[in-house]
Each structure stands twice: as C-alpha cells, then as structure tokens.
C-alpha cells in the first residue's frame, strides 16, 4: 500500500505547477500579510489573534487548493486512460481507490502544515497585543482548523473526480460545491432550524472553531462529526461505487 501511495504522490508531485501552488500559496499569503504588517502598511498584532485570523484564511484557501488536487487525483487515471493498465495487474479496485485517497490526505496535510508553519512563525515574530500571546492550543488550532475543511472538500472533489472521470468538469463542479453549492442548504433553515444539520460548513465549524455559542453553529459535537463524515463519506462512497462497477 505504501508503494501505491508513493506512486500516486509521484504523479501529483510531477504536476509541478499544481503541487508548488498548493504547497507554497498558503505560506506566500501569510508572508505577504506579515510583510505588510512588519512594514506597518497594515496594523496587525502578532500572537493569538494573528494565528486565529491566519488559520481562518487558511481554512478558506486550503479547501480551494484541495479541490484542485482532489478532483485531479480522483479523475486522473480515467482521464489519462491508465486505469485499465492498473486494473489488469489484478490489484483490487478498493486498494487503488484507497491509495489515492491516502495520497490526497498526505497532500492536504502538507499544504496545511506549510501554511500553518508560516502562520505560527509570523505569529511569534510579530509582537502580540497585551495579554494576547500564543498558547499551546493556538498551535493545534493553526493546524486542525484549516486541515479539516481542506481534507473534507478535497475528499468531496476526489469523489466528484471519480464520478465524472474528467478533470476539468470535476474541478468546476467541486469548486461550485465548495464555494456555494453545499451552503445553499442553509436556506432550508428558513423553513426549520433543524435543517442546519444538513449543512457541511456547520459541521466543520463545530469541529474546528468550537463556536458552540454561535447561533450559526448550534449543533452538538457529535452532530457536527456526523454531518462532516456523511457529506465527505457520501461523495467518496459514490466515487467508489462508480469505480467498482466500471468497465474499462
């Protein structure tokens, strides 16, 4: 399995434009904010506030980058026509599918870690407001808060890629789902407050920002986990079912 994941990561790494963008863009964004702050073009304190805001920025940017990667990983073998050559080795389809999902997880982790590292370094370098220094939980939040949505939307895009078997359309659909599509369900809250349980971002926010007092995120932790797993798992499962039945 390790060899399969390494092979899938090799395919990704050789797409240098996508790979470097995904790894460096979060860090570059944070560097720009830091430089603007250090040269006093903008006023930003370091410490806890900087890390919290930086993690929020990563939680917006990370999923977009993960969509590009996930849709690519999910559809690549179909689009390249190489899936049949993988299948005729007799390797079970579930292993092929899971290795790609694992490669996506590694990619999401790496892009989150580079961004989070920049956020933390600049959060330490920039002087904090009084009483706003960094705490241990800030380090956890800087990684976890962007990582969860990044992987969740990456996995959804992966499922979409496997379903659609064409990279461009898969990216388009997954981006629409990421930016507006899944949040459209929030409109159902106008009918009944319970419908917030259908909104992926409500589940993710509950598991990351931990904002239990926020009326927008008023669901339990368990409900948050279920919402997140169901949405993410649903798309991954749909992609798997498509692959399982596919004749190539």
């Amino acid at each position, binding site marked *: 399995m390790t*060899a399969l994941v390494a*092979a899938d990561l*090799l*395919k990704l790494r050789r797409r240098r434009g996508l790979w470097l963008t995904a790894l460096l863009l979060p860090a570059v964004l944070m560097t720009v904010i830091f430089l603007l702050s250090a040269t006093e073009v903008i006023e930003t304190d370091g410490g806890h506030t900087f890390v919290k805001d930086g993690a929020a920025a990563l939680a917006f940017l990370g999923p977009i980058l993960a969509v590009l990667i996930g849709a690519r990983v999910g559809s690549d073998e179909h689009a390249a026509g190489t899936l049949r*050559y*993988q299948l*005729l*080795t*007799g390797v079970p389809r579930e292993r092929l599918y899971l290795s790609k999902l694992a490669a996506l997880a590694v990619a999401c982790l790496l892009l989150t870690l580079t961004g989070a590292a920049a956020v933390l370094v600049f959060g330490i370098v920039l002087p904090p407001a009084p009483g706003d220094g960094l705490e241990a939980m800030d380090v956890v939040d800087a990684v976890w808060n962007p990582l969860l949505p990044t992987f969740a939307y990456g996995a959804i895009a992966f499922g979409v890629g496997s379903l659609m078997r064409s990279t461009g359309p898969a990216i388009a659909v997954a981006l629409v789902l990421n930016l507006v599509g899944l949040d459209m369900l929030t409109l159902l809250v106008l009918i009944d407050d319970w419908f917030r349980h259908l909104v992926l971002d409500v589940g993710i926010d509950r598991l990351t920002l931990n904002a239990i007092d926020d009326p927008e995120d008023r669901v339990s932790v368990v409900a948050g986990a279920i919402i997140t797993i169901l949405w993410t798992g649903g798309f991954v499962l749909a992609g798997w079912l498509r692959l399982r039945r596919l004749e190539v």
Partner: protein
Amino acid sequence: MAVTLIEARGLTKRFGERTAVDHVDLDVPAGSCFGFLGPNGAGKTTLIRLLLGLAHADEGRVTIGGVDVAQDPRTALRRVGAIVEEPRFHGHLTGKENLEVHAALLEGDARARIPAALDRVGLHGRGDDKVKGYSMGMRQRLGVARALLGEPTLLILDEPTNGLDAEGMAEFRTLIRGFVEREGRTVFLSSHLLDEMEKLCDAVAIVEQGRVVQQSTVTSFLAEAGLALILDVDDPARARALLAHPDITIVDLDDGRLRLDGVGEREQAAAIVKRLVDHGVGVVEIRRHAPTLEQRYLSLTRHEEAAT
C-alpha cells in the same frame, strides 16, 4: 500436445441490442504466437477486455493458466502483460517514471527490471524524457516495456503495430518472435494487418461480427485453400479451352494470367505444360500458387458473409 494457456468457452458480451462478442470459444496454446484477426469493429478489443477481466461477460467464462479470470483476477493475471486498444500513459511523467508507477502495482522487485525493459524495447536513453513528447511508435514500445515488468508468461497485445513505420514493424516482429522462440512466452496478438500476422503468428482465429469463424494453425489455415497453379500464356482464351475439365476451376486474374484451382502437383503441372505446348500455346510461366493469409481470410469472410 500443447498445453492450453487461455481457454474461453461461450464468451458473450452484449451492449444493449448489439452482441459484440457472440459465444466465442478459444484455445490459445502455451508457447505460441496466436493471432486474433478481424476487421475494425469485429469485436477484437472487446474480447481482449473480457480475457483480461476489464469487462464483465454476460455469458461464458475465461481461464488463464487454469484460473478463472472473473473469480480470481489477481492470480489469473499475475503473469500477464498487455496493451489494450492503445498504450496510455501519464504524459507529464517520464517513460521511466511511468514504469515506476506501474511497478508499484506489481509483486516482487519489478522496479529493478525497468532499465532492462527499456533496453529491451530500444528506449534506453529516452527513459528520462516526458512521455508527452513520445511518438506513437515510442509509446507502443513503452507499452511493451510496461507489459514486460511483471515477467509475464503471456503477453496480450491489441493492434501493437499501430503507428509503427516499416522499420519499426520489422523490429517489432523480431521482438515478438524472440519472446516466443527464445523465452517461451505466449503472445496473443490482435490485428487487422494480415500480412504482419502471417509473418508473426503460429496460429490464428478469425473473428467476424463477434464470432470466431475459424481457428487453426497458420499452416493448416493456408493449406485449406487447396492446390492451385498460376499460368502465364500467350493465348489465355485458347489455354482456357484446352484445359477445361470438371476438376479444374479456371480463374482469370487481373494481369491476364490464369489461376487453375484444384491442380498443383508436379506431375499435373508437367501434363498441363505438355498439352498447351502440343497445341501451340506458348507457356511463359507456370508456378504453384501459395495463397496469403489475406487471400484466405478474405475468401473465408466473404463466404461467411454470403452464408449469413
């Protein structure tokens, strides 16, 4: 008696109303080069996909080395390498990287065999070039290199000479015959290039509209055409009249020569020459007619068409 490596029984595949593969029985002997001949759209690629478990048969079964492909694909395909339809790769990876990616799927130390595989197909020195810059011929070679990584006892190659120039085809023939004669591998080829198949194959199956209409060794397939002589004379009309006989069918060829079907023995040829010369007909040439695979194939498939 040769051991059967691929055995298909009653193999059928339908796409809606259309039957692409129609109750095909196939026996491919181990250690031979087996040709699967048919026009485009005859069902060759679909049959190959069924043999490799890439598509599910509606009826029938396939075994490779005695193992059912549908039941246990991992075991059945362990020593099988293939090119299906066309060799496809990740264009953004180099040839070598594409093989590394494939080697990760194989058991054993397939990665260590990459340099030898590239060398074998004449891509040594081009392995570090990106595949998107490869010609079709180079992709075909790389496809064979990929197929060789698993040390296959059986190679299934679908239209492998597509995109190759004359020199490439000659090299490819040498490569394939080497697999069979020196290494004892079995090669299953599909093609519509009958001339190439005649040069390469030990046995053939003819496919027409999804059905195998004949399967035999190339030698016996050609021998079934029967005896014939080609006759070049100065007066074909007179020769025709002189040679009229219930056992001889005389066919006018395009270039003015005659083909005498039903005769071909040495003594028969001598008697024909004597009769013609005795009656004042000049004989320019007489020789035994050796039918090509293409002629046999066309005669068979036209006969099949007429029958249906």
